C-alpha cells in the first residue's frame, strides 16, 4: 500500500506544502466543514431551510454536512486507515480533490445565496464565515497533494481530476456479498433520489445537484463506479429486480402526494424516452416527432375512457382494453408514418418525422367539428377523464396499505412502474436478439447491413412501430393521470416535458442504447424545470447551455453504452474484455491505405 504518486520525482503540489500538511489540512478541513454545518449561518429564517439554529443543521447545511463527511472519509482513506481502503483502490488524488471542491461549492453557494437573497453580507452570522473558511481548507489541502508537474498549468489542473488507468481489480466477492452490496447501493440510490425529488425549494435542489455531481464524479475517478458496474454485469437480473423494488418502495416513503405526482410524471416521461431509445439508440433513426405517439395513446384512452366530453361518451373500456387500444392506435399510426418516411435516411428522415409530429398536433387541434370532423374536441381537448378502477380499487382515492397512505398519484405511480417494467422487458429482450442485432447493424452501416441480407426497410419499420406502441401504452396512463388531454403538450419543443425535443434530449443526455440512461435523463429533465422555478422563462436557455456542456465533455451521455463510449473517445488502445487475457498481439500489422 504505497502511494504511487509519491515516487515520481517531479511530483509536487500546485500549492507548495509538504504531503503530511496537505493531508492534515484535507482531513481537518473536512471535519471542520462537517462541524460548521451545526452552526447558525444567518440570523433570520427568511432564507429557506432555517439555517439559524446552532447545534442542528437545516436545509442546505445538511448538504454541507454530507459533503464534509465525504471529504473526511476520502482523506482518512488516503491515510490508509484500515477498513476504508476500498474507497480509494487506486490511491489517487482525484476523489479527494473532487469531494473537497464539492464541499466548498455547496457551502459557498449557500453563503453567497444568503448574501444575495437577503441583501448583503451583514445577514451572515459568524457561523457562516466559519463555514466559508472551513470549506476552503480541504480545497487548499487537495491542491497541495503531489501530482506530476508537467510545467503546463492546464495539464497540471487536469491531472488533479483525471481518472487513472489500471485501477487494480477488486478481490472477488461471494455471490451473496455481491447481492448484499447491490442491495445497499440500491437503497442508497433510492435515498439520494428521494431526497432530490423531495427538495422543497430551488436553492436546496441546486445544492443537491452540486453535491451529487461532485460525489458521483469522485466515485467515478476512484474507480468505484466501474467496480459497481462490473458487479451489476454479474448480477443483471438481480439488479433489475432491486431497481424495481426500489421504484415500488418510493411512494411509500412519500407523505405528500405532490412528490408521487412528480414520480409518476418522471415514469411516464422515462417510459416514452425508453421507447424512443429503441428508435434512436438501437436503430439509429432520428425521430423528431415522437411525442405524437404519446398523444395518440393518450387521445385513444381518453376517447374510450367514458368521459362525458368524449366523442364516444357512452363507451367506457376497462383499462386493459383501453391500454391495448391506445397501443394499437399508436402502432397503426407508427406504421402509417413509418412506411413512407423510412425510405429516407438521416437528416431527411428527421425533417419528415418533425413534420408528421406537428401534423398530429395541428390535426387534433382542428378536429373539433368546425374545421374538421368532430373527434377530439379541438383545443379544448377531452377533460374530465374518470379515474381508473381495478377490482374495486379506485385509483382516484387514497388508500391505506400497511400503515402507509397511498394517494391518487401514488396509485398511478405503481401502475406506471408496472408499465415501465413491461417496457424495460420489451426493450432488453428485443435488443438482445436477432432483430436487435439487425437494428444495431443498420445503425452502424446500412449498406453493409442490407448486403448481409437484412431487409432494412422492414427492420426499421418494426423498430419504429415498436417504439410507437410503447409510447402509446404510456400515453394511455398519462391521460388518466392528468384528468384531461389537450393538443398543446404534444409539440416539438416547449419549456416543459414531454415534448419531442425533451424526449430526444433525455435519451441523448442519459445515454443512448442503455436502459438506465433514458430513465435517468428523463428524471433530470423533468426535475430541473420543476425544481428551478426561479429560472422561469430562462429555463430553456439553461437547458440549452447544459446540453452543450454535456455534449462537449461527455458526448456518450451520463450512462455510457460500451459501444457509444468507444465511438466518441478514440483511445487508440485495444479494448480487451475482462474474461480473456491479453496474449501476444500480432505486432506485424501494417495499416497501409492501399
Amino acid at each position, binding site marked *: 500500500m504505497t502511494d504511487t504518486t509519491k515516487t515520481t520525482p517531479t511530483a509536487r503540489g500546485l500549492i507548495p506544502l509538504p504531503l503530511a500538511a496537505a493531508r492534515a489540512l484535507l482531513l481537518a478541513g473536512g471535519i471542520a466543514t462537517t462541524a460548521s454545518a451545526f452552526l447558525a449561518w444567518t440570523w433570520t429564517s427568511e432564507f429557506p431551510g432555517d439555517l439559524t439554529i446552532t447545534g442542528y443543521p437545516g436545509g442546505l447545511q445538511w448538504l454541507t454536512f454530507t459533503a464534509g463527511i465525504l471529504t473526511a472519509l476520502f482523506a482518512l482513506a488516503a491515510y490508509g486507515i484500515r477498513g476504508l481502503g476500498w474507497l480509494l483502490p487506486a490511491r489517487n488524488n482525484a476523489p479527494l480533490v473532487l469531494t473537497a471542491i464539492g464541499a466548498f461549492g455547496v457551502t459557498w453557494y449557500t453563503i453567497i445565496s444568503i448574501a444575495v437573497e437577503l441583501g448583503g453580507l451583514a445577514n451572515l452570522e459568524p457561523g457562516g464565515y466559519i463555514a466559508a473558511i472551513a470549506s476552503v481548507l480541504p480545497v487548499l489541502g487537495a491542491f497541495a497533494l503531489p501530482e506530476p508537474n508537467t510545467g503546463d498549468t492546464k495539464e497540471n489542473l487536469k491531472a488533479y481530476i483525471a481518472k487513472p488507468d489500471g485501477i487494480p481489480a477488486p478481490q472477488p466477492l461471494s455471490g451473496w456479498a455481491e447481492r448484499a452490496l447491490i442491495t445497499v447501493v440500491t437503497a442508497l440510490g433510492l435515498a439520494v433520489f428521494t431526497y432530490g425529488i423531495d427538495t422543497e425549494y430551488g436553492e436546496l435542489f441546486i445544492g443537491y445537484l452540486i453535491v451529487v455531481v461532485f460525489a458521483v464524479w469522485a466515485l467515478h475517478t476512484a474507480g468505484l463506479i466501474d467496480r459497481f458496474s462490473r458487479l451489476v454485469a454479474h448480477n443483471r437480473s438481480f439488479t433489475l429486480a432491486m431497481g424495481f423494488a426500489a421504484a415500488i418502495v418510493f411512494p411509500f416513503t412519500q407523505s405528500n402526494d405532490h412528490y408521487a405526482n412528480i414520480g409518476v410524471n418522471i415514469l411516464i416521461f422515462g417510459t416514452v424516452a425508453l421507447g424512443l431509445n429503441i428508435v434512436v439508440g438501437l436503430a439509429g433513426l432520428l425521430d423528431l416527432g415522437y411525442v405524437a405517439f404519446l398523444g395518440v395513446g393518450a387521445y385513444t384512452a381518453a376517447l374510450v375512457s367514458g368521459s362525458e366530453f368524449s366523442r364516444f361518451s357512452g363507451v367506457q373500456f376497462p383499462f386493459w382494453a383501453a391500454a391495448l387500444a391506445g397501443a394499437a392506435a399508436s402502432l397503426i399510426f407508427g406504421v402509417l408514418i413509418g412506411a413512407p418516411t423510412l425510405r429516407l435516411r438521416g437528416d431527411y428522415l428527421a425533417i419528415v418525422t418533425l413534420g408528421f409530429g406537428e401534423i398530429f398536433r395541428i390535426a387534433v387541434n382542428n378536429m373539433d367539428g368546425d374545421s374538421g370532423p368532430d373527434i377530439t374536441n379541438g383545443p379544448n381537448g377531452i377533460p374530465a377523464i374518470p379515474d381508473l378502477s381495478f377490482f374495486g380499487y379506485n385509483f382516484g382515492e387514497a388508500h391505506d396499505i400497511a400503515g402507509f397512505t397511498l394517494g391518487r398519484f401514488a396509485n398511478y405511480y405503481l401502475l406506471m412502474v408496472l408499465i415501465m417494467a413491461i417496457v424495460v422487458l420489451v426493450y432488453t429482450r428485443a435488443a438482445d*436478439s436477432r432483430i436487435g442485432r439487425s437494428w444495431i447493424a443498420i445503425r*452502424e452501416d446500412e449498406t453493409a447491413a442490407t*448486403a*448481409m441480407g437484412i431487409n432494412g426497410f422492414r427492420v426499421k419499420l418494426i423498430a419504429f412501430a415498436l417504439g410507437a406502441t410503447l409510447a402509446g401504452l404510456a400515453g394511455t396512463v398519462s391521460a388518466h393521470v392528468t384528468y384531461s388531454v389537450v393538443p398543446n403538450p404534444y409539440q416539438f419543443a416547449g419549456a416543459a416535458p414531454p415534448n419531442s425535443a425533451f424526449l430526444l434530449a433525455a435519451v441523448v443526455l442519459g445515454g443512448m442504447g442503455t436502459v438506465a440512461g433514458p430513465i435517468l435523463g428523463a428524471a433530470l429533465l423533468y426535475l430541473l424545470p420543476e425544481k428551478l422555478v426561479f429560472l422561469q422563462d430562462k429555463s430553456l436557455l439553461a437547458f440549452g447551455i447544459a446540453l452543450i456542456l454535456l455534449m462537449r465533455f461527455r458526448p456518450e451521455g451520463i450512462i455510457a453504452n460500451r459501444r457509444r463510449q468507444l465511438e466518441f473517445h478514440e483511445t487508440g488502445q485495444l479494448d480487451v474484455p475482462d474474461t480473456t487475457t491479453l496474449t501476444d498481439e500480432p505486432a506485424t500489422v501494417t495499416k497501409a491505405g*492501399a
Partner: protein
Amino acid sequence: MNNMTTPVLEARDVTMRFGGLTAVRSVDFTVNSGEIVGLIGPNGAGKTTFFNCLTGLYIPTEGTVSYKGTVLPPKPHLVTMAGIARTFQNIRLFANMTVLENVLVGRHTRTKEGLWSALLRGPGFKKAEKASEERAMELLEFIGLADKRDHLARNLPYGEQRKLEIARALASEPGLLLLDEPTAGMNPQETRATEELVFAIRDKGIAVLLIEHDMRFVFNLCDRVAVLVQGEKLVEGTSEVVQADERVIAAYLGEPFEGAPGEAEAAEVAAAEAQNASTKGDAQ
C-alpha cells in the same frame, strides 16, 4: 480448370449507366460451381460497379443476373438470401459490434426469429440463438478469430478485419462469395494467408469471384480470370491466356513505343477503342 460443372452465377448483357456515363457495358459473365474466378482491370474499369450490379446494390440499366438459374431481384437482401454474399473494398464491418455479433448479423438470412419470438423467449428462440452462435463460432474458428469473439470489430488489426468480413459473409451460407480486393493493404504474409483462406473456402464448395490488383495473388489463385477495361470485358480465360494477351498488357501499361511518354492513359483509351471502335464510352 473446372469445366463440366453447372453455372452458379450468370450475368447476361449487364450494362450500368449513370446518366451519360456508362460504367459497365454489356458484360456477359459466368461463374461455375467450385471455381475461383478473378476479375481484374485498371482503376476505374468498373469492377466494383459490376459487383454492385451483381449484388443488387445497383439496379443494372440493362441485362439480368441469375443465380443457379433463377433471375435475381435487384434488392441486396434478396440477393444475399438467394446465396450470394460479398465483402467490400473499403472494409464495412459493424465497427462497434463485437466480432461474434458481426458474424451473427451475417446469419440473419438463415434464421427467422422475429420480434415476437424475441419478446416471448420460447424454447425455439433459445435453440435458434444457440445454433446461430455455434455456427458463428465454427466460422470464427475457421478463419482463426475464435479467441477474439468479444473484441469490438473496430479494435481488430487490419488483416483480421478483412478476415472477419469474410467470416461475416460466409455466415449467410452462400453458394458464391464475392470478394472485393481482399488483400488490399495487406503485407505479403497476410496475402499468402488469404490465399490459403480462399482455397479453403472453395474446398467448402463455395464458388469465389474476386476483384484484385495483386496480380501474383490472382494468377496463383484463379481458375479463370476476366479483364474489365473501361466497363467492357476485354479477355477471359486461364491465367496463361490472360497474361499473354497483349491487349491486357496494353491496358495496364500502355502500348509500348506508341504515343508520347507518360501518356499511358491515352494508350489505354486507344486500346479500348481498338477493341470496340463503334462506341466511345467515357467510363472513368
